[in-house]
């Protein structure tokens, strides 16, 4: 990779911090507060989900049964694996193993892309079956429940769509950080960047861990 030309040297400590520990703590605190805001951002949708699930229980059960549970399970596994590789990437960054760091970051991006691929496949399948809310919504299996089932699918597309947008941002973030680490000599800021991107990536995984049972497994045993 970039071992040929001289790596860019950057001062490890931003000038307004006193020491590396303070810089790392600030970065970590800032990221955790940002994740709290993201949690509340998704929270609005979780609140709507809770309220409507209680108001239209039957429609949620019937509509949820139309989702592809297997695809959801695979997606959860893919995302958990990407979380593993991300954690290993952060570990490699701390141990200053540049090669392993870039490999793990690449694998994380690949898994992220696989997740988006499966998701896109699911959505296109739903599109053909007339499950996309709006004028095309037909819900052919149980037309009598079409009214409220549309609310479920609206929540489904909003939640998974918002999650997918965050995942795309995550992939872009990991790519830029990988680029930064490839070109720059190792400095505290490099490690901070990788660690904070890792926190963001794990947060996306945490949201999916909740989304999967709430959307896919409402009442599948019937």
């Amino acid at each position, binding site marked *: 990779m970039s071992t040929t030309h001289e790596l860019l040297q950057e001062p490890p400590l931003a000038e307004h911090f006193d020491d590396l520990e303070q810089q790392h703590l600030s970065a970590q605190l800032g990221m955790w507060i940002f994740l709290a805001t993201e949690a509340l951002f998704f929270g609005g949708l979780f609140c709507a989900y809770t309220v409507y699930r209680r108001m239209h229980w039957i429609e949620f059960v019937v509509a949820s049964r139309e989702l592809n549970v297997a695809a959801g399970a695979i997606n959860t596994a893919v995302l958990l694996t990407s979380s593993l590789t991300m954690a290993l990437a952060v570990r490699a960054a701390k141990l200053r193993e540049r090669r392993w760091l870039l490999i793990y970051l690449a694998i994380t991006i690949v898994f992220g892309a696989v997740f988006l691929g499966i998701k896109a496949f699911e959505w296109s399948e739903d599109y053909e079956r007339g499950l996309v809310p709006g004028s095309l919504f037909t819900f052919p299996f149980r037309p*009598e429940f079409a*009214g409220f089932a549309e609310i479920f699918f609206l929540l489904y597309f909003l939640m998974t769509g918002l999650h997918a947008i965050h995942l795309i941002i995550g992939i872009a973030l990991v790519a830029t950080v990988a680029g930064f680490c490839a070109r720059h000599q190792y400095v505290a800021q490099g490690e901070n960047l990788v660690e904070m991107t890792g926190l963001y990536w794990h947060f996306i995984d945490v949201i999916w861990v909740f989304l999967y049972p709430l959307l896919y497994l409402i009442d599948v045993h019937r």
Partner: protein
Amino acid sequence: MAHLPFFPEQASSHAKDVDAVFLAGMGILAFFTALILILIVTFLVRYRRGTTAERDNAPNTSLRIELLWIGIPLIISIGMFAWSAVVYYRLYSPPADAYLVDVVAKQWMFYLQHPEGKREINELHVPLGRPLRLRMISQDVIHSFYVPAFRAKQDVLPGRYTSLWFQPTRVGQYHLFCAEYCGTNHAVMRGTVEVMEPADYERWLGSGSSEGSLARQGEQLFQKHHCGGCHGPSQNVPAPPLQGVYGGRVPVTREGDPSTNFITADDRYIHDSVRLPKKEIVAGFEPMMPTYDQTELSEADLLKLIAYIKSIGAEETSK
């Protein structure tokens, strides 16, 4: 409309209670504002720079005083809460025999219909002294039925009945406003509520064309929409009979839920059975009923149907 410059007419039974709570609140406000004002002014005058007042060892903190001005406001707050909650609860529990008037709010007017079939727009005539309950629904956005003289206000929601009751205690004409912003002409969505002597009210009720009581108009609608085809005696399609159903308990099954739970067949249930028929299906019947949205069956007509179902419910209580 002579009235105190600070209070609208007290024209309903609970107007006095609301005013009492308000006066107590204003009393507390006046007391604390005066207390703070006097304290500040005395301190400013006595301790302004250049005066020879004695200033050493002023306390910086004292737990006793802090607890004092935490405790007293706490007690006052809980007292005010309890008193206003009692008055609020009375506002939300109308007497069972209250006279029922239907209100349909639509963009920029209130459409009212009396059980005797009389219809009014932005006007409401009520007899003195008889408790009145309004059953309200909106055809489009959220409005709010507000009569300042009765100290009564309740938002009118699309898709759900909300209700409001009051007992007029003084004859006269009072303002009726829409209090929730509802679009361009929200400001002109106004009217008057006229409280009349019972004799004048009977005379007013008799006057004007009358297409019969609400229940009878409901019956005509029942035939017009061929509801009898399924719910009537001919029963060419099995559908739950409607005689004596109003107010009773209906066994309802919900698909995917083995237990049947009982719900009371009140206005909400009938409204939802017409607008969203698949929501709660009577035990032992198929979800076959077509949905009637606002174009086929306006909210006002649906209220007439409910009045009709209520009337046939009262006759045959044999079930």
